[in-house]
């Protein structure tokens, strides 16, 4: 089909209305930056990032998500204060006990606690809401008619959840670092192996922990997004993801089921303790990242298979 042909055919219907000034302005020929409507559609490379930006804006400006980040940020502060009070009268051992002696350890102690439930909940909410929330509100049909493109929208939604997962992780780390620096002494960090590293090295290991824990949460986000494509009720997808997390945590605690624990996501979240060993157990971290990658691949492809063929009837 030629462009000229279409242009000629743009005769008004049977309702003769004189062209207003405004309609003349809308003529593509007089529009400088506008794409020619009848020409081949110009897909802009920047459009993907624009949609992702819009998605991130929606996620981080949403009060619910801000509250979740705030709650997650409060926990290290509470742990810090509790330990400060407790350490005064009684010596406690283990990771939690080491906090009293070193400010940086509060970050690891906070992660060891938050990674079990609270961070997964925050990530489940954003991931589970991703597709189901739009479907439930009806906005999904307008996004797809825009057309956002199903694969493109799914990728944007997942990346958005990943960014939120990392944001949660960074918020925990920063809150714990600041609280630790205020409440506890700064100095060389004692590792689980009994050896000591410098503060700079300790900060570097916190950075590695953030990278690893964030990846673990990103893997959970893949599960949440996949579940989100199966329902139009976002609370359903969120609850399903959280139940999955809780059930796997329970399974992990049953000694008879030890054989399956390496396949469960939560088993690998706590493996960030590899950075607290000497030498750093990169083998364990690498294996964890492989597991996270496998979860992302599997649940990402399930989400795609479901979403790309789904009838949008909401």
């Amino acid at each position, binding site marked *: 089909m030629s462009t000229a042909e279409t242009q000629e055919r743009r005769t008004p219907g049977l309702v003769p209305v004189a062209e207003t000034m405004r309609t003349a302005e809308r003529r593509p020929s007089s529009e400088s930056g506008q794409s020619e409507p009848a020409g081949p559609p110009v897909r802009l490379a920047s459009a993907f990032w624009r949609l992702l930006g819009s998605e991130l804006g929606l996620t981080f400006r949403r009060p619910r998500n801000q509250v979740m980040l705030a709650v997650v940020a409060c926990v290290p502060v509470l742990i810090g204060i509790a330990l400060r009070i407790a350490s005064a009268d009684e010596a406690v051992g283990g*990771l939690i006990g080491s906090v009293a002696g070193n400010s940086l350890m509060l970050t690891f102690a906070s992660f060891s606690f938050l990674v079990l439930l609270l961070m997964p909940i925050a990530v489940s909410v954003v991931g589970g809401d991703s597709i189901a929330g739009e479907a439930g509100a009806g906005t999904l049909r307008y996004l797809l008619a825009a057309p956002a493109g199903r694969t493109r929208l799914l990728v944007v939604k997942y990346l958005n959840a990943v960014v939120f997962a990392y944001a949660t992780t960074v918020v925990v780390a920063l809150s714990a670092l600041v609280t630790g620096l205020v409440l506890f002494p700064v100095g060389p960090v004692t590792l689980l*192996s009994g050896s000591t590293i410098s503060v700079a090295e300790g900060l570097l290991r916190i950075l590695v922990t953030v990278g690893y824990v964030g990846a673990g949460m990103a893997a959970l986000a893949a599960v949440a997004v996949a579940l989100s494509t199966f329902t139009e009720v976002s609370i359903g997808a969120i609850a399903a993801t959280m139940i999955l997390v809780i059930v796997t945590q329970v399974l992990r605690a049953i000694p008879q089921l030890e*054989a399956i624990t390496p396949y469960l996501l939560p088993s690998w979240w706590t493996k960030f303790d590899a950075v607290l060993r*000497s*030498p750093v157990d990169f*083998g364990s971290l690498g294996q964890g990242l492989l597991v996270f990658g496998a979860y992302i691949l599997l649940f990402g492809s*399930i989400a*795609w298979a479901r979403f790309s063929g789904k009838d949008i009837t909401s």
Partner: protein
Amino acid sequence: MRRGTFVRWGVPIAAAAVIAGAMGAGPVIAAVSGDPVLPERTAQQLLADAAAATKDKAGPPPMSGTVQQTASLGLPALPDMGGASPLSLLSGSHEVKVWYGAGDKLRVAMPTQFDESNLIVNGDQIWYWDSGDNTATKIKMAKGAEKPHALPTPGPADVTPQQVAAKLLANADEHTAIRVTNNAQVAGRAAYQLVLAPKDEGSLVQEVRLALDGETYMPLQVQVFAKGSAEPAFQVGFTQVTFTPPAEENFSFTPPAGAKVKEETIGAGGDAEHAEQQAESAKEARKDTKVVGAGWTRVAVLPATLADLTAKPAETPSDGKPGSHWKGGSEGADPSALVQNVLKTATPVSGTWGSGKLIKTKLVTALLTDDGRLLVGAVTPEEITKAAGTK
């Protein structure tokens, strides 16, 4: 359903297949590439080579690696026990990291979730570090006591393949059929496998496989197969190993600031830590122990009553609560709880020898007679009742 639906769902199915493939790839690659890479050896040649390789030098070559120990003895469910307890080794799978430098430098680390215990030996400096209770223990050898890495402790506390291998090689005699395969792969290394199969019908052991590194002849893995089971009932071996001298910093330990520092002397009694405790009681028990039979069907007979077994042994460490762990609830192992648990599965038996309770697992049969004897052996129930008849 439309064709498109099948095509789409093919993608996650393919992804699942790729993941399953990647998980199974290790063994598969090993099986493909693991065909005779090593020259053929007879059992004698192999044992001679191995003996030469270990005797010529002061010990095994410097190395580091991860040792995994798995036991599925068919015991009843054990209560959740502290990671560091020797009893916990009786079920499930455990991992320790080993660094071995030249001569008398050794570090063994047992990492558990958010905790780690270390045994560091550097010449006559021996440290035991437990992050759980933030305690560094300096261990001193009493005069005449053996070095800790050569402790004669029997049982599952022997975690390095060297120790287990040595013990098993000692049993290789006229009771055993021995063959050698040269295409095994352990921890990514080509290995010889020495297969020891008991000739005696009364043994519960199908065979014992000992993998020796093709280059250094260092034992890499020991597997014990019970009769009628394709999976090893007990296995200890390297999952990862490197034969390069580990960094020196692994063997230097200074108690960190803020840690409790204790000193203990081994070989002079006292409240030593678990493993040594076990060794002590094992030594004591050996005095009263009688052995019936020969080879693989040996049965140990020791005096014991039901009351003895279920009572809490007086010598259990009295320091009680372990360090406060995050996971909590991991109370120190209580052997009497284990015994009580095991006894629940016992079946009453009787015969010309008297009567008692029989406990059968995949690898071990135990008989507690009513006249106060405990018979234990890797033998069939028939064999153990026979042994019960020999007073």
